[in-house]
């Protein structure tokens, strides 16, 4: 777990247009002023640590490198000790998370999968279209840098309430950016989630997840040999290896992205709004093809994407990982603009760039290959036996700095107490709210139409979710399902997080996020085999946020351990605040599941008239008032975010196991996670998606609000032919999971006891059009 790149975030930020370079290494005065330290977001104490470790004052260019590499994004100052708690062991792991940019899991048949989430929150708040687009580009480069073909994108978006025009502007801009970039590069966008809450007003969350497939190496020129998946390392192999810079020319994009924005509260950024990075998806597409072809050439030993802090982090961390010194010549870097200083070249975050490590003598065909794709590939440096990075500007040596000092950022640990306000919120008893004045049917229709629950079809249909001919289950159900060509296998993918529950209890809420991501995968019949996380939190210098971070990661570790799924990669975006108010702690969880036989998968919609509707995981169809804690119902109809979320991880594991077994045995006609909006919403969704009515027979108890709309965890709605019920019952009993027959499929109405009786048409209209109605205008 040594490398800080393990959880490196590539969040880049948009700097001011620099009319004048901030630093000129030749003329800049030392010692450094507070203003400069602020600019690169280093504290005075950190600066003094640098002086002490170097045994001298850093030169200005060095200081820029420290600012970048000691940022939260590259250095993980506030999160690294916590992240060590996360489980990273699995017999399927081919590469441990710490060794490369992400862990790699073995799927069998010579195929491996790598996946990662990246946030682009702050750039998207400034310019939503380009911010989201470059976020997609960044995470895709992360994946193909490992030699993996990007096969799926997902995204997880959070905005403030859609009744505010600014939030609608952000939503439409972000969706447009994801659509324009993702569609152009030919990677299907197979799923995601969008939700709204006041806590994200002014600081939207834009998290993109990419999944890559690494195939068995068939090439004769393989430098690794063997018949396993060919994983490309982000390191050089031998002293003398040449560093090639490939892709876009370097401009003054995003300088101080890693250090500047990533380490400050967002409210301070107003002055820095300009020079947004504009991504070039066409170049990215060409770069994917060229790089994946290049790694098959002899002599190509390593590859790394340029993300946060551009060349600085990519090159220096590559050297660190290679345990070699690196000589770089900034004069060789192709520029898009004139008059750029070495400082600007080193810290530029221009998009669509990669570096490759190539054995000397083999670079000719590599450069030729890139030329075929109309791409520049330029030798900008070489590795040597040593421990320092030497940066030249032509013949002039600008700096020579020990690499380990640059990459060993300080680490801050904290032990903040639980805030009093949180204990008060948790003590709230949902039974204390009175029954609403609306009818149960009215509330069901209201929840189905709420932008958090309603179908996001109008968004998904602007994303190409079918390119590459693998998409078996399209977005809109629980998890997307893709087949793996030539194997008979499939994978299920989901990204999930309920920020409201994480706010009410960071530990339980994050455990629920893990459980729910896995449950969504399990309901398709797939076995969860790997997780990735995208941590979105407020300012880690605040004790409340420290408490949230600590508890959240503990909850994540506990749930991942309980469910036996390793966390193979991650990303942290801190300082998510607007107007001094932190966002809900939002640790997005991405889950990967494997289906040994892709034809045996379940989908969410009811299938046949006469099928029984079963609830797996609970002995009664009706939830108790405790299940209302943090629910959509309380938030929407009582404007209340309070209560104590809970999850029994042992039960959760068994419920998922039973569901997978039932799907695999072919006993189940549909399976759907029971979550936001509770049982009534989930049952109605299965009816709407299936286009057939449903009746839940039992009489709804007096606390119908909790019974119908409580969100207790570990529940799954199944439907099955009556003849299969005994088989499902047997499977549930084997793992000691309650199973209740709650109703039957059929007709054209959606009914719950005598409390709710609406037409399928009404329900369908609310669910299908609710999102558009709430977000247009």
């Amino acid at each position, binding site marked *: 777990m040594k490398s800080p790149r393990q959880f490196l975030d590539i969040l880049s930020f948009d700097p001011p*247009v620099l009319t004048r370079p901030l630093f000129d290494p030749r003329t800049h005065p030392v010692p450094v002023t507070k203003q400069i330290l602020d600019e690169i977001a280093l504290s005075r104490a950190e600066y003094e640590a640098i002086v002490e470790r170097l045994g001298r004052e850093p030169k200005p260019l060095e200081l820029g490198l420290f600012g970048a590499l000691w940022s939260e994004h590259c250095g993980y100052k506030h999160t690294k000790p916590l992240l060590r708690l996360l489980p990273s062991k699995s017999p399927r792991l081919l590469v441990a998370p710490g060794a490369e940019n992400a862990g790699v899991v073995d799927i069998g048949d010579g195929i491996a999968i790598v996946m990662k989430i990246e946030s682009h929150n702050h750039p998207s708040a400034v*310019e939503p279209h380009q911010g989201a687009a470059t976020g997609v580009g960044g995470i895709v480069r992360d994946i193909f840098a490992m030699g993996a073909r990007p096969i799926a994108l997902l995204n997880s978006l959070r905005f403030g309430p859609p009744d505010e025009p600014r939030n609608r502007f952000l939503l439409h801009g972000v969706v447009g950016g994801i659509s324009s970039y993702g569609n152009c590069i030919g990677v299907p966008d197979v799923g995601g989630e969008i939700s709204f809450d006041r806590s994200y007003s002014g600081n939207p969350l834009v998290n993109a997840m990419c999944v890559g497939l690494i195939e068995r190496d068939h090439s004769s020129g393989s430098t690794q040999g063997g018949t396993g998946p060919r994983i490309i390392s982000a390191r050089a192999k031998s002293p003398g290896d040449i560093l090639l810079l490939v892709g876009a020319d370097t*401009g003054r994009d995003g300088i101080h992205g890693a250090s500047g924005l990533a380490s400050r509260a967002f409210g301070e950024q107003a002055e820095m709004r300009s020079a947004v990075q504009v*991504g*070039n998806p*066409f170049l990215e597409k060409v770069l994917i093809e060229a790089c994946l072809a290049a790694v098959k050439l002899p002599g190509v030993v390593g590859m790394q994407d340029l993300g946060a802090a551009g060349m600085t982090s990519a090159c220096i961390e590559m050297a660190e990982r290679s345990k070699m010194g690196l000589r770089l010549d900034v004069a060789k870097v192709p520029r898009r603009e004139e008059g750029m200083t070495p400082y600007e070249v080193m810290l530029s975050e221009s998009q669509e760039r990669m570096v490759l490590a190539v054995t000397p003598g083999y670079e000719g065909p590599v450069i030729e290959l890139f030329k075929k794709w*109309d791409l520049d590939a330029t030798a900008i440096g070489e590795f040597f036996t040593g421990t320092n990075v030497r940066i030249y500007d032509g013949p002039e040596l600008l700096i020579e700095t020990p690499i380990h000092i640059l990459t060993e950022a300080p680490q801050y640990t904290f032990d903040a107490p639980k805030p009093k306000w949180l204990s008060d919120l948790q003590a709230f008893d949902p039974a204390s709210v009175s029954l609403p004045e609306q009818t149960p049917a009215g509330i069901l229709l209201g929840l189905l139409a709420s932008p958090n629950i309603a179908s996001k079809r109008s968004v998904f249909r602007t994303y190409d979710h079918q390119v590459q001919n693998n998409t078996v289950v399209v977005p809109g159900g629980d998890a997307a399902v893709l087949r793996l060509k030539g194997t008979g296998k499939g994978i299920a993918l989901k990204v999930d997080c309920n920020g409201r529950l994480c706010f009410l209890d960071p530990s339980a809420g994050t455990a629920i996020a893990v459980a729910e991501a896995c449950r969504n995968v399990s309901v398709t019949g797939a076995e969860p085999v790997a997780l990735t996380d995208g941590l979105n939190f407020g300012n880690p210098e605040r004790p409340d946020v420290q408490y949230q971070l600590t508890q959240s990661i503990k909850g994540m570790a506990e749930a991942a351990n309980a469910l036996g799924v390793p966390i193979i990669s991650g990303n942290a975006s801190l300082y998510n605040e607007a107007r001094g108010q932190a966002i809900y702690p939002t640790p997005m969880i991405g889950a990967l599941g494997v289906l040994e036989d892709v034809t045996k998968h379940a989908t969410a919609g009811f299938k046949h008239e006469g099928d029984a509707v079963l609830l797996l995981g609970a002995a009664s169809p009706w939830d108790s008032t405790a299940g209302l804690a943090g629910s959509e119902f309380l938030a929407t109809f009582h404007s209340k975010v309070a209560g104590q979320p809970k999850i029994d991880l042992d039960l959760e594991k068994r419920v998922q196991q039973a569901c997978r077994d039932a799907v695999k045995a072919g006993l189940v006609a549909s399976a759907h996670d029971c979550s936001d909006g509770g049982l009534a919403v989930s049952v109605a969704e299965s009816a709407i998606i299936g286009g057939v009515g449903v009746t839940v027979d039992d009489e709804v108890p007096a606390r119908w609000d909790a019974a119908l709309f409580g969100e207790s965890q570990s529940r799954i709605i199944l439907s099955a032919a009556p003849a299969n019920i005994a088989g499902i019952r047997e499977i549930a009993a084997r793992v000691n999971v309650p199973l209740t027959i709650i109703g039957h499929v059929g007709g054209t109405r959606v009914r719950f006891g005598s409390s709710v009786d609406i037409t399928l048409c009404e329900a369908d209209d609310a669910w299908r059009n609710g999102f558009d109605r709430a977000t247009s205008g």
Partner: protein
Amino acid sequence: MYLAKVKVTLKPAVNDPQGITIGRALGRLGFDTVDSVRAGKYFELKINEPERAVAEKKVREMCEKLLANPVIERFSFDLEPA
């Protein structure tokens, strides 16, 4: 009545993928003296305003509010009687 001819282009420091791609294509077609291309948008607006100063002010507002994205773009316009 005035005719406004509005040009919207990316700010000089902002990456212009379209311009770069078109520039390279022109080079392949033999136009090898093309040094760079910047792409932009062009609008013609007829405005029912008798006063030039008012028309100018309104066009500027339209540019700032809608026609250009001030975060990445800049604009210029000519105004002529129509």
